[in-house]
Every structure is written in C-alpha cells, then in structure tokens.
C-alpha cells in the first residue's frame, strides 16, 4: 500500500506540489505566530541604559482595574517618591542606589527627541567618558553618537525652552537611544517632578533575587531584575495583550486558510483519479486500503512540507517581527523569543489540521465503488447531499448574522468580530460551490456566453456539468478576495473613522506641534499673534474613571483631551466648557447617565501616570459616536503626562496663512488644519498589521491554489480536448472555450469574494462612521481584480497549450489519469 502511494506520488508531482507549498508556508507562518505569542508572554527586553544596575525599582507600568481583570499599560510615566530613594539606600544589603530622572530633550537642529538625565545616572548604563570630564552647571556630557564635539556650545531644548550649554565631555555606552547628561543640579531644576527609576546595587555576597524579596515597596511600585528590567526603560511593553491577540488571530487564520487550500486540492485530486481508484477497488483494495493510500500520499507530502516550514520558521518569525518593530508597533528593544515551543506548537497544529482535512477527502475516496472504473464518461453525479446543503446554509446564514450584528457594535468590537464574516462566507461558498456555480448560470449570463459561438455553448455546458471541479478553482479566488479586500478596506475605513472622529471635533485653522512641549509663556505668545481669534493648548492622554467605578472602559481606557480654549465643536448639553479650569472635567452625556452623575458631581479619575485626582463635573459635552473623550483642563492633564507640557497648540484665525507665517517656536512645526490628522496615530497599529499581513497571505495562497487547480483540471481534460479537435474544433476554439469557462469562474469568485468582504466591511463602516460606505482607495479593488486575472488567464493559456501538444489521436488513447 505504501509503495502504491509513493508510486502515485512520483507520477503526480504537480498535483501534490500545491499541498507541499501550502503546508510549508502555513507551518512557517504558524511558527512565526507562535514566536509572537511566546514573545508576548515573556516580554523580555534586556535593558540597555539601565543595564549596570542588577535591580531596578520603578512605578508599575500597568494599570490593574480594581475589578481585577487583566492589565493595561499606563500611557504616561510614573514618578518615584524621593523619600523612597532614601529608604532604599538605608535597607540592609544595599550597597548603592542611583536614582534616575528622565525628561525629553531635543538638541537644537535635530528632529529627534532624546532622553535628558542627570550625570549621576550615567553609571546605570554604564556610560564611559571617552573625552572631557563630568558636567558642572551649564555644561553637558553628550553621547558620542549625537555629534557635538568637546567644547562646542549647543542649544538643548527642554520643556520648550532652549538651554545654552557647553559640551564638557563625550561618553559612550552600548545603547540604541542616545542620551544627554546635565549636571545633577541642573537636571533637578529642569525636571522638578521627581525620579522615574531607581537603580539598586546589592552589597557583595547578596543575590539580587534575595534582596528584592527584602525590599519594602509601596503600592504601585515594583522591583525588576534580569531581562524584566526593560519595562523600566522602554515604553509600550508593559502588557502582552496586543501581541497575544495578534498571534492568536493570525495563527488561526493561517490554519483555516491552509485547511481550505489543502482540502480543495485533495478533493480535486481524488475526483480526477476516480477511475484509477475505482480500478484499485475492483482489483481487490478494500475501502480502508484506498483510504489509507490517500492518507499516506498526502501526509507524506504534508510532512515534508511541515519539515520545510519548520526550517523556515525562524526566518518567517524574524521577518514578521522585523516588520512590527520597523513600524513602531512594538519597541525594537523587545527581544523576539522563538524557543522550541512555538515550533512544537506549529508542528502539532499543522499536523492536526492536515490529518483532519485529509480524513474528509480520504473518506470520499473510500466510498468510490468499483463499478465506477467502468464508466466511460467521467462525469460525476450532480446531486448534492442534504447534509452538505444544510451545513452550507448554516455558514451562509451565519455570515449574514455576523454582518448584521456587527453594525450595532462599538468600533473596537466591530473590528474584532466583523473580520470572520469574510471567512465564514468563503467557507459557505466552498461547501455550496457546485450549487453556486450552477445558479450563477442565469439566462442573462448564458446568453452572453453563447453569443461567442460554439466555444461559448460548450463553456456553459462544461460549467454546469463540471461544477464540482470548478469549485476547486472558485474557492481560492473567493477566499482570497474576501480576506484581502475585507481586511484592507476594514483597515482603511477604521483609520478614516478614527482620524475623522479626532479632527472633526476640534476647531483649528493653525496647528503648532512641538514634541518637546509648549510652555505657558510660549502659548501666550501664540495666542497674542495678530489675526488669532482663539487659542487652546491640546494635551492627549488616556485614563480611567474609578469613582464611581466605570466598567465600560477598563482594558480600553477613556481617551482624555486637555483643552484651554474654545476649540471644542461637540454640543454641550449641560453646563459650560468655560468652567473647565482647575480640577474639573466634562463628560459625554451618555456616560454621565450610566454613572448616575451630573453637573456638580465629583469624580475620581485615575490618570495616565497612575495618579488619582478628584475632579468636579462642569459640563456634559457630546463626542463622536464610539470615540467619545473626557475633557479636562490642559494644565491639569499636562501635569500628569510624561512630557509635562502640552504638545500641540490650536489656533483659530480668519486668515490662517498669515498666522502660519508669523508663528515661530524653537523646535516646533507650524501647519494648517490638515496637520491635525496627519500625525495621528490611530492606535490601530497592531490590528492594521494583522490586516495587511493576512491580505499578503491571501494573495500568496490564491496564487498557489488557483494555479495548481487550474493546471491540474485542464491537464486532466486532455482526452476531451483530443475528442473535440477530432470532431472539428481548432486549438484556438478549444482555448477560447477554456478562457470563457475560467473567466466566468474568476468573475464569480471576485463577486462572491467582494460580497463576503462587504459582509465584514460595511458593518464596520456603519459602526465607525455611521453609514455603510467604506473608505479607501478604489485602486485596491481594481488592483486586486488585475491580480486575479493575471493569475487565471496566463495559467489557463499555458496549461491549455501543454494539454493540446500531443496529436488528438494520441490524446484519445492515452490512459486516463
């Protein structure tokens, strides 16, 4: 039996090539997904700037909602109390403590924001002086990578104000992000709010782990050792949730797509070899033996593919992770961990998927009756089983249900739940394929085809009768169209919706952006520019409402908007935004209703740096549906951000160009209203990347599956073409028939794919923008249509030529299969 399996493999290499490629790709991508999962769980980011200190004490980087479910990264840096530093220094077993304060700084002339510190914290890296000496007041030591030389007089912008300093020394360390060191006294003056981190050095003979156990730390402060210290140095790696979600969704879709491609390919192969398998049965093979043969053949190929995939798993993982870090989704200092577990998991999952898919196809093979070896006409029965119809209907209806229910969800949930609609729709098409193809041959369509002459007639007949074979070509095209178009347009729609929600709510004719912050003095300067009718600072952050406890925004914090002027467009239902000063807040009316508070109530807000502030509600202001924010005075909010100062200023003016020309601020860029949305990170980073990656996979899989199935299906009809040519068709007429058949299938696949994608995208459009029109470039759709045609037509042409190369008589007498 095994020998039989291998002999058939050797002779049908083409048919099995698709399975090989699909499994290789699938398992490599699963390894990558597994690596992402492991990385997300471990979150190892070896520290660089804090590498010298064995223990690092810092504020807890993650917010734990009081009801205990999960954790979310704090958007802002927390401070460590100075008293804690003294207490740590006095603890037994501690040899030395070095506190570190960080503040954003920009060397004048460069666009990058780097870290400013006191010289004392240079020892934490450790930075070594390679020239000059430690800085005194008015001096700095720069990282060698920055450029300025010993003795240069440079300007460093801190807190919006340029500091004129002399380079007293140049230092170097093994860090990616450079720093500039001020004298400790200067640093304390520039960043009065306190320390961010404390490096603790244990006394000789005391192990860091032991010392950590002994340290008494207040709530909200934790000690880290080893590679966990990275949490203190880099932002954005506090929680693993985004990576874990991504690896799950990604891995899941890869598995499903792989299963569909493999099953379509094996299904086609079994159908083609029907006569051969029937002959095997007539020669004495029991159904079980036939089943075993099909399983062995496919598993043999699958295992080779799996091995190849595992070998490329590291490459795939590095590539995908590289894309994520390269685009800022995760910090580049996060180490990509891909130990043996992801590979083992990928191997297991691939094997299980493969084995299950093969079992179904092998079941069909085993049911072949010996009498079918004698059937001259190789046309299968056209009736679809009842079970199959029901299952297909379930998937189709399920797709509709998902589509409808997504329309009523919040934007975030809509994105997560809506995606699968494309997938379930494609599965429905896969199951109901022959029925779909036959129903598509309505009189309009057939009339159109038949106008093309005899080739058209034959094409219609072939499509109807061989609907089952053509399903194998229809499925990959539909699936890929649904995934590619669905994901891309879902992303573009959401991006647009988020940006619109952000910008449509604010009046702004001129926007001033300063990464290092805008001081109150600079704000006044801008406000008093001629032509400016109104001005406001703009601070953005995230936070939670803890008193009374708001369960609606826990893992997904409330967006906070800090304002200091009349630039908010949303309707104010109660109270007035003019009162938004001091410790006050404005809520959306729906939220106020749910929390049973109103104008005059007091709330407890947990801000982005873990501080709990009490604020009074002074207004109920509406925001865009699904994207509401809490409004706070900019002075209050800015004080609790990492930079400490507002990063943007919005100005209203009659003649914006005049103001743009007149406005000038060191280190800042001035632009018109369009700048407001331009730099906006819609916060969809990870989701967008899943979307685009999946679109890429979809294209790759369509290419493999459709080329393979078209080639195999056409070559199988060699005898038929020979007969056709003997009865009077020219090669060209046969080719015309093939083009027509495959064009119909391609068009049908595109239409169905677009429909399935629409089931995912339109509800998202409704949920996020309010009406069922997605946004995104129409070129994507046109480009996709071009890709599909480019795959289908040339493949048809090439395989048709191959199939008709022998003389018609020889083609007739060749053994089938």
């Amino acid at each position: 039996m095994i020998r039989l399996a291998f002999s058939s493999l050797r002779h049908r290499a083409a048919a099995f090539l698709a399975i090989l490629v699909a499994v290789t790709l699938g398992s490599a991508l699963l390894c990558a997904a597994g690596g992402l999962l492991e990385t997300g769980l471990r979150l190892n980011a070896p520290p660089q700037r804090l590498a010298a200190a064995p223990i690092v004490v810092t504020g807890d980087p993650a917010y734990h909602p009081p009801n205990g479910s999960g954790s979310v990264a704090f958007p802002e840096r927390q401070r460590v109390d100075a008293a804690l530093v003294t207490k740590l220094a006095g603890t037994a077993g501690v040899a030395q403590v070095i506190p570190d304060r960080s503040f954003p700084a920009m060397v004048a002339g460069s666009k990058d924001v780097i870290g400013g510190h006191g010289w004392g914290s240079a020892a934490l890296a450790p930075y070594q002086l390679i020239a000059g000496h430690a800085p005194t007041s008015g001096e700095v030591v720069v990282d060698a990578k920055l450029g300025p030389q010993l003795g240069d007089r440079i300007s460093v912008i801190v807190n919006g104000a340029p500091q004129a300093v002399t380079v007293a020394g140049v230092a170097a360390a093994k860090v990616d992000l450079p720093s500039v060191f001020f004298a400790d006294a200067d640093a304390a003056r520039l960043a009065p709010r306190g320390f961010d981190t404390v490096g603790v050095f244990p006394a000789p003979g005391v192990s860091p782990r032991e010392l950590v156990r002994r340290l008494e730390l207040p709530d909200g402060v934790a000690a880290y050792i080893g590679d966990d210290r990275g949490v203190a140095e880099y932002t954005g790696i506090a929680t693993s949730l985004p990576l874990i979600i991504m690896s799950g969704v990604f891995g899941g879709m890869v598995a499903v797509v792989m299963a569909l491609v493999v099953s379509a390919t094996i299904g086609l192969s079994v159908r083609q070899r029907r006569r051969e398998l029937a002959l095997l049965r007539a020669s004495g093979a029991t159904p079980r033996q036939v089943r075993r043969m099909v399983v062995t053949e496919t598993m043999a190929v699958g295992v080779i593919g799996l091995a190849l995939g595992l070998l490329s798993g590291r490459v795939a993982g590095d590539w995908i992770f590289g894309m994520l870090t390269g685009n800022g989704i995760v910090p580049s200092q996060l180490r990509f961990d891909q130990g043996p577990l992801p590979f083992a998991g990928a191997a297991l999952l691939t094997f299980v998927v493969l084995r299950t898919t093969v079992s179904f196809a092998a079941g069909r093979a085993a049911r072949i009756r010996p009498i079918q070896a004698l059937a001259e006409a190789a046309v299968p029965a056209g009736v679809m089983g009842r079970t199959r119809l029901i299952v297909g209907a379930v998937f189709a209806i399920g797709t509709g249900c998902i589509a409808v229910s997504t329309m009523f969800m919040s934007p975030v949930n809509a994105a997560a739940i809506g995606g699968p609609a494309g997938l379930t729709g494609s599965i429905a098409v896969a199951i109901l394929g022959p029925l779909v193809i036959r129903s598509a041959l309505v009189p309009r369509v057939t009339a159109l085809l038949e106008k093309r002459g005899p080739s058209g007639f034959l094409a219609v007949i072939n499509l109807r009768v061989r609907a089952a074979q053509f399903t194998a070509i229809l499925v990959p095209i539909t699936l890929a169209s649904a995934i590619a178009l669905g994901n891309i347009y879902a992303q573009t729609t959401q991006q647009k919706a988020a940006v619109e929600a952000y910008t449509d709510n604010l009046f702004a004719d001129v926007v001033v952006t300063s990464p290092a912050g805008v001081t109150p003095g600079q704000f006044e300067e801008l406000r008093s520019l001629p032509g400016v009718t109104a001005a406001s600072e703009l601070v953005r952050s995230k936070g939670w409402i803890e008193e009374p406890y708001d369960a609606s925004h826990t893992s997904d914090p409330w967006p906070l908007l800090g304002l200091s002027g009349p630039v908010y467009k949303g309707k104010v239902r109660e109270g007035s935004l003019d009162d938004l000063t001091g410790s006050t807040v404005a809520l959306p009316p729906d939220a106020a209703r749910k929390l049973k508070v109103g104008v005059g109530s007091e709330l407890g807000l947990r801000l982005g740096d873990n501080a709990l502030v009490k604020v009074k509600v002074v207004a109920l202001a509406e925001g865009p549906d699904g994207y509401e924010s809490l409004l706070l005075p900019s002075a209050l909010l800015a004080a609790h951000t990492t930079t400490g100062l507002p990063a943007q200023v919005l100005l209203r003016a009659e003649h914006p160009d005049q103001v743009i020309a007149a406005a000038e601020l060191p280190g800042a860029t001035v632009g018109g209203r369009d700048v407001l949305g331009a730099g906006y990170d819609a916060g969809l980073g990870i989701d967008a990347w899943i979307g685009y990656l999946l679109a890429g996979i979809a294209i790759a899989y369509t290419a493999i599956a459709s080329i393979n199935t078209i080639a195999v299906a056409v070559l199988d009809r060699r005898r038929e073409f020979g007969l056709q040519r003997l009865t009077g068709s020219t090669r060209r007429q046969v080719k015309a028939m093939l083009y027509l058949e495959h064009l119909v299938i391609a068009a049908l696949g595109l239409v169905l794919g677009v429909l399935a994608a629409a089931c995912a995208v339109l509800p998202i459009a409704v949920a996020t923008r309010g009406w069922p029109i997605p946004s995104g470039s129409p070129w994507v759709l046109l480009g996709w249509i071009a890709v599909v045609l480019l795959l289908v037509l040339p493949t048809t042409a090439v395989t048709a030529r191959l199939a008709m190369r022998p003389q018609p008589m020889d083609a007739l007498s060749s053994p089938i299969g």
Partner: protein
Amino acid sequence: MNAAVQLTEVRKVYGTGPGSVTALDGVTYGFAEGTFTAVMGPSGSGKSTLLHCAAGLDAPTSGDVHLVGRSLRGLNETALTELRRDHVAFVFQSFNLMPTLTVRQNVVLPLTLAGKSPDRAWVSEVIQRVGLGDRIRHRPSELSGGQQQRVAIARALAARTAITFADEPTGALDTVTALEVLSLLRDQSRAQGQTIVMVTHDPVAASYADRVVFLVDGRIVSETTRPTAESVAAQLAQLSSRSKVSP
C-alpha cells in the same frame, strides 16, 4: 457438481420511471465449477451487466448471487472486496491497468492488495505466455491497447483464483495472440479446475469454451455444449433476427 457462480432470478434495472432500462430481466443460471463458459448475445443484451452482477461489482436490483457458495446479499463493501479478492479475477474491456505501475507490478497487484506473496515462477511464466516477457518493466503508457489487454489477462491468471470473469478479452488482440490467450484460459479451466466465464461476440473465441450461453434482452434464451465456430455463428445470426422482431 456445485455451481461456482449461481445467479437466482437476478434483475438489474437502471434509472427510474419511464426512462428506466432493464438490463437483466430475471436471470437464473449456475456456472458449474471447472467449466469454461462463453456468454454471447446481440449488443445491448446485458452481457456485461451479467458479468458485473455475477462478480459482485454491481448489486442487482433484485434476486440473489452466490459466489463459491456464499451469498453476496447484504455484504458490505469491505466483505465484498475480500470475497472477490480471494476468489475472483476480472478482466475488463478497457482501462484495466494502474497507470503508475509497471507491467509486473500490475500483474501482482491483486496479490499485493490481499497481502499474499506472489509465486514468482508462475508470474514470470504467465507474463511470458501472454507474450510480454520483454516488457516487464514498462508502464501502460508505453504499451499498445492490445498489450495492455494482455497484461490484464496475465493478472487474472497470475492470481489463480477459483473464478475468472473476462469481458471481451480478445477484442483488441491479433489472431495469434488471441488464440494463445484462449488456449491459456482453456488450460486453466481443464487442468487447474478454474471456473471461467467469458463474454465475447467472436464465434471462434466461443468455440474454445465448454458451453455457450445466449442472452437476449436481459434473458437467457438458449445454451449449447461442445460449441464449434460454425454452430455458434449460426445461432447468433438466428438470435439477432429474432431480437429485431421482439417488442
């Protein structure tokens, strides 16, 4: 003598309603052990269908079939296959061979599937006697139609099963090889005691058999023993004219 193959009131109807075709209309016959029987009749008389039902390849609509004393009624596919594997060899009219296997591998295929080890000497002899000794390692695509047919016959003989069914085995062969194959078959039944049932339209081939059964419109109409080519031809002509008259 026992009947190696016994058919009892076997009916086979294809399709339903007005478009249905009755291929076999109540056939009762026993093919005795060790006999070489030729089944003949005009085209459309149900010869191939009779063979398929008798061999257990197709299930009759009604009636009973017994092979080597066992009833085929109610057997599932696996049991049916095992019964056939152990006792029956079949030579089809066309498409007999696995395209991916060599001549030798095709010949021993049923034995391989049954898990039995082939008698090498006998296999080689059989292949020689059908005239393909120099083509043992070739694949079907490298053989002519007639050569492919000879491989199928060799396969049936190599298995040395109790019963062999052959559907027009000499149809594609030249006269010399045809006669060689027919003597082979006759030897098998006389010397080895195999039961051979052969469908043919060739009176010369029929003359090698012990008896000839004539089938018209799905019914057995007559039988001859010790046939000669001339007597068989005469009877066939008579039948053809008769079937034209019958409704």
